[in-house]
């Protein structure tokens, strides 16, 4: 929302409290971000629960959508983790659908993009890694830490290898969170900037107004790209979650 003629690509990320909520001095207000989280859950539930309520053998449109997403995520999960990975299916499915729906809801003009806030993506990434750690240690005990010891390395190299493995493991939630956050933030800023150029060029009629279609075309192309990115980032998030969860299932190197 450009104020006047200037470009303000940042205000779209502003958190605005809707219902104030401050227990123990904490700001837990229900904000526009919370509202779009609720929207995302509502949309997913509408597709998955209302869509499948007919239980038709020959599916309708909404049920087809529910089945396609189910089979898509299920094939991703089994493709990475095998059949036993299906115990993580609800988690991966919820992650994929939450990120995808939040990304796509963010594409509606004037809406809020939940996943453009680093704390949200960090929360999801920490969830994935904590499930990996808790499940891995509970299932395999100390054997789980064999993940950090590459087999077949010479003994004097082991300390360095372990250090590298620990660092790479620790960087997983960071890269998982930053990738999604960065993509969504940059895409939405880019859209706003190019949209703002169109507004600036057409606000006052001058010789430069002729150039207005150029950023307009770019903004259209960027919109298409952003839809692709919205899907792709959700898929990348889900498949990386699968890869990390696979380490908890099979910690052998």
């Amino acid at each position, binding site marked *: 929302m450009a104020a006047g003629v200037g470009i303000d690509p940042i205000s779209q990320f502003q958190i605005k409290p809707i219902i104030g909520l401050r227990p123990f001095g904490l*700001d*837990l207000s229900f904000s526009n971000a*919370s509202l779009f*989280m609720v929207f995302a859950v509502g949309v997913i539930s509408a597709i998955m629960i209302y869509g499948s309520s007919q239980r038709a*053998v020959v599916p309708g449109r909404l049920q087809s959508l529910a089945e396609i997403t*189910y089979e898509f995520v299920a094939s991703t999960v089994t493709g990475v983790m095998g059949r036993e990975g299906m115990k993580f299916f609800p988690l991966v499915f919820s992650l994929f659908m939450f990120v995808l729906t939040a990304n796509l809801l963010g594409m509606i003009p004037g809406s809020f993009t939940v996943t453009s806030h680093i704390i*949200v993506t960090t929360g999801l990434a920490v969830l994935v890694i904590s499930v990996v750690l808790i499940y891995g240690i509970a299932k395999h005990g100390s054997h789980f830490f064999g993940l950090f010891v590459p087999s077949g390395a010479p003994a004097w190299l082991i300390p360095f290898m372990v250090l590298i493995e620990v660092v790479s493991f620790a960087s997983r939630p960071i890269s998982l969170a930053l990738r999604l956050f960065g993509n969504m933030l940059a895409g939405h800023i880019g859209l706003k900037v190019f949209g703002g150029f169109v507004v600036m060029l057409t606000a006052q009629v001058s010789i430069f107004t002729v150039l207005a279609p150029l950023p307009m075309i770019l903004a259209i192309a960027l919109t298409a790209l952003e839809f692709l990115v919205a899907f792709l980032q959700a898929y990348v998030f889900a498949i990386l979650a699968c890869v990390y969860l696979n380490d908890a299932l099979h910690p052998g190197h």
Partner: protein
Amino acid sequence: MPVRSSRFVRQGLAGFVASVLTAPLVVSAAGAATPSLSGEKAAFPPFDVTTFAGQLFWLAITFGALYWLMSTIALPRVGAILDERATTIARDLDNAAQMQAKAEATALAYETALTEARKNAQGIAQAARDTSTKASDARRHTVEGELAAKLAQAEATIAATKTSAMTNVRGLGSEVAVAIVTKLTGQTPSATEASEAVDQVLARG
């Protein structure tokens, strides 16, 4: 595909929720220490630490609700629908295959019955032809035998008639010869002379 959230996943989720509910305390303490990152102007919203607690809080609630809805209602139901469809299709295909096998068996049985019947019909026709040929042959044989016997009888009759006729002719000849000689010479030759002369003539004749 059975969708059952494992105990460990639930533990992980519980751990996440717990950490999220305690995180705001830490985060808000940090937020109190550094009110905003960019000094006098308002902080860049995604890095505004004061909003972190609320966002995490509502993320935990909404994502927890989503996980619960998906794992207990939506995914088992969709999985059941897909399973049911797969079994229905498999059963229908099986039925169709059985039907086809049955139809093929029936067609085969029909074919064998048809060839057998055709073979039988040929056999019957052959037998009928054989018996009729045999019967007609036998009849022809008897008829031929009868005809041969009649022919032989007729030939014998003819021969007898011929010999008797020939004797009559000789007798008549010798009488005529006696009469002619008597008329010409006035002398009457004896019957034996006449008959010898006739025999001589006949022998030359």
